[in-house]
């Protein structure tokens, strides 16, 4: 550990900005807050992306570590205790000033603050709390603040931060406890989930949801927070304990200087993809659990980059890993916007995504009995299942067909991707081209030429590709 002495602000920002880049949570959305008329800042519900990195990720917040000194030894992190990297620490004043000055110039929507663990989780959390307090109570900053919850910090500190921040998150890192054990031995499943549950109950408390189910009114014990663990997924997440989460002490009372709501933009989390051998099914099962049982707003997936050049963890697989990450994000959107369930997309028998067609097309190909769908009469949920029809297209179709019958040229103008949709829809009872509705035929049309060459390799193949070719051994397992 090389501790930097008298580092300039430029050097600190270089080190601590670089150190935070693998935390891919980039959104500045979820909080709707107008300016208060006398001090600076507002928050836009949809979030704003002020810039984009050279790899296409959005930059909307000043994403920094408070310090990259750390006593933990996580295998995926460049700042782990045994590495010889230059260590730097921001003072709370510096964090606040940087945030304010960048914000005034419209470079950022707000601050994203994480920290290495030094010397203890509680000490790191307190330093972060100091910075946020400065911003909110002294500079009266009204912009967006995203703070990482530190596993192991006191509940009181986590709650105090919650009254000042817009979003809080804690990284799950790996989908299984076993994976976490290998990659991050200092963290435990329990220590990560505790702040998540705490903040979740704080948000409920703030929204007065619990008033309806007030413990005093219930004769029986409150319902156990059961976690659905899908068959064959293994011990993914432990069942919640039976304690009623409302604090009777002072932890949820609004402290002086607090913002109007407790963590108004909710929580998010992140999982590392490609470091361990979990299947896509396990990852998506955990994702669904997090959305349903823990009320998370977003789950992010970060491709594993072997920054420490360890020989016993996977090397960078390039395109393959990024494609897998892309599939996971596609499935994540299907869960959130397209009314899909994990069971429809994957199963223990088929645990990984098809690399050649996206999950929605894959579902459609396995359920050809549902298609073709008549555009003019199908329900909104049925329309959402059609490949090539997105949420916006489905909404427009539903609105437009109230006034007139739609034909193929109309839905093309609406924004439906005809290249994919044409095999699955009829307009006014007719399909656009006569199509033999078997899996193999349609699969051939759907895969574009590049990928077909990748599949066939150097051999010239006259055999038609079948669905079996794709789902059998051809799926690339990372």
């Amino acid at each position, binding site marked *: 550990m090389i501790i930097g002495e008298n580092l300039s602000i430029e050097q600190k*920002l270089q080190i601590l*900005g670089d150190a935070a*880049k693998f935390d891919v949570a980039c959104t500045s959305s979820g909080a709707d807050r107008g300016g208060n008329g006398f001090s*600076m800042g507002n928050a836009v519900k949809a979030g704003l992306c002020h*810039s984009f990195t050279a790899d*296409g990720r959005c930059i909307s917040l000043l994403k920094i570590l408070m310090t990259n000194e750390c006593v933990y030894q996580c295998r995926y992190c460049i700042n782990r205790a045994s590495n010889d990297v230059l260590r730097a620490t921001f003072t709370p004043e510096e964090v606040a000033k940087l945030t304010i000055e960048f914000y*005034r*110039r419209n470079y950022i929507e707000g601050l994203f603050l994480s920290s290495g663990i030094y010397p203890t989780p509680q000490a790191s959390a307190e330093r972060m709390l100091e910075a946020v307090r400065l911003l909110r109570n002294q500079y009266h900053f009204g912009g967006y603040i995203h703070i990482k919850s530190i596993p192991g910090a006191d509940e009181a500190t986590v709650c105090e931060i919650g009254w000042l921040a817009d979003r809080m998150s804690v990284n799950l890192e790996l989908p299984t406890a076993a994976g976490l054990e290998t990659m991050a031995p200092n963290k435990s499943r329990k220590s990560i989930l505790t702040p998540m549950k705490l903040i979740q109950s704080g948000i409920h408390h703030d929204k007065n949801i619990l008033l309806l189910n007030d413990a005093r009114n219930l004769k029986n014990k409150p319902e156990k927070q059961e976690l659905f663990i899908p068959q064959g997924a293994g011990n993914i997440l432990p069942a919640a304990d039976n304690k009623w989460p409302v604090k009777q002490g002072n932890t949820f009372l609004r402290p002086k200087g607090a913002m109007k709501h407790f963590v108004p933009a909710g929580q998010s989390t992140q999982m590392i993809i490609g470091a361990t051998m979990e299947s896509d099914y396990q990852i998506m099962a955990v994702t669904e659990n997090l959305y349903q049982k823990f009320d998370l707003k977003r789950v992010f997936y970060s491709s594993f980059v072997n920054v420490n050049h360890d020989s016993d963890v996977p090397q960078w697989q390039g395109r393959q890993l990024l494609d897998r990450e892309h599939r996971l994000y596609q499935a994540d959107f299907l869960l959130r916007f397209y009314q899909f369930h994990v069971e429809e997309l994957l199963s223990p028998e088929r645990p990984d995504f098809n690399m050649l067609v996206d999950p929605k097309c894959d579902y459609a190909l396995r359920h050809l009995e549902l298609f073709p769908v008549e555009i003019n009469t199908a329900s909104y949920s049925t329309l959402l299942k059609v490949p090539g029809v997105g949420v916006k297209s489905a909404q427009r179709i539903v609105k437009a067909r*109230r006034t007139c019958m739609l034909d193929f040229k109309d839905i093309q103008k609406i924004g439906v991707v005809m290249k994919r949709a044409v095999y699955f829809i009829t307009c006014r009872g007719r399909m656009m081209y006569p199509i033999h509705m078997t899996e193999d035929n349609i699969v051939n049309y759907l895969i574009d030429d590049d990928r077909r060459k990748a599949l066939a390799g150097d051999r010239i193949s006259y055999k038609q590709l079948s669905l079996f070719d794709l789902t059998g051994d051809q799926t690339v397992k990372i």
Partner: protein
Amino acid sequence: MIHIFMAEDSLEGILSAVSAAYKSRYGHADNRIHISGELETMELFSEYIPVETDQEAAEKVYHAVYEKIGSEALKVIESTASSRYPERAEVIYRFLILGFANGERAIDYLTDPNIIRIREIYRNVGNEVCHWQEFLRFKVHQTGKMAKESVFQEEPEQGKLIPVQTEDGNRHELLTAVIAPKNKILTSIMPHFSDRFSSENFIIYDETYDMAGIHEKHAEWFAMAAFSEAYPEILLFIKKSDSSEKQMQELWKIFFQATDIKERSNIKLQKQLLPGWFRKNMTEFIS
């Protein structure tokens, strides 16, 4: 015989022309509305009728749109009027004809080419407004008597940040920004920035349309046209940066480059999300 009404380039002008077109009773099929002052190939067998902007008539039409078609329609025609497309007046005219006949649902007539076109324009202008809210970059200038009299540091203290202006400080600061939009969106982005930076003085200069939006601390914003003629010295002032400003710009560039993950490099995607024509005035792309 086609009757072409020449409207002035503003929402009031276009609505006056709509009012004139209805009153003329020539029949909508034979009417067109074009913007006067734009490059125009004169057509044969057409009558060109210039329409003066009549504030009262325009307000009547505006009110009628609100009553009969709805508030969403008002947003649609305001956006279209501020766009750069030469067909904007004609498209508004056709939309209003449909709207007055059918009410609120006219905007969903997705089989009609005029409705498709006006929705495209609405989306295009809306997207550009969002983009400029994101990509606009302010510069901070020190102004006022204190700046000249006090010993103004040429170099910021080594490694430290210049302190932020406090509420009752004597330092006066002015934020300026330059944008070069394709559509006339300055008046649409001013409310967002006035709400966000209510405690700041700022000027946003629009290069394409030669307009400036001006906001004084804790006051209402206003816009000014023909700005380069009226205040050329301000434009010169905007181009300068002092040393503390340069330090913040350098810090931003350092942060911007630090966020790169080389293994995931995808310049094509970056170009798609942040097109080149926005980058002229963005700190991180000016080297």
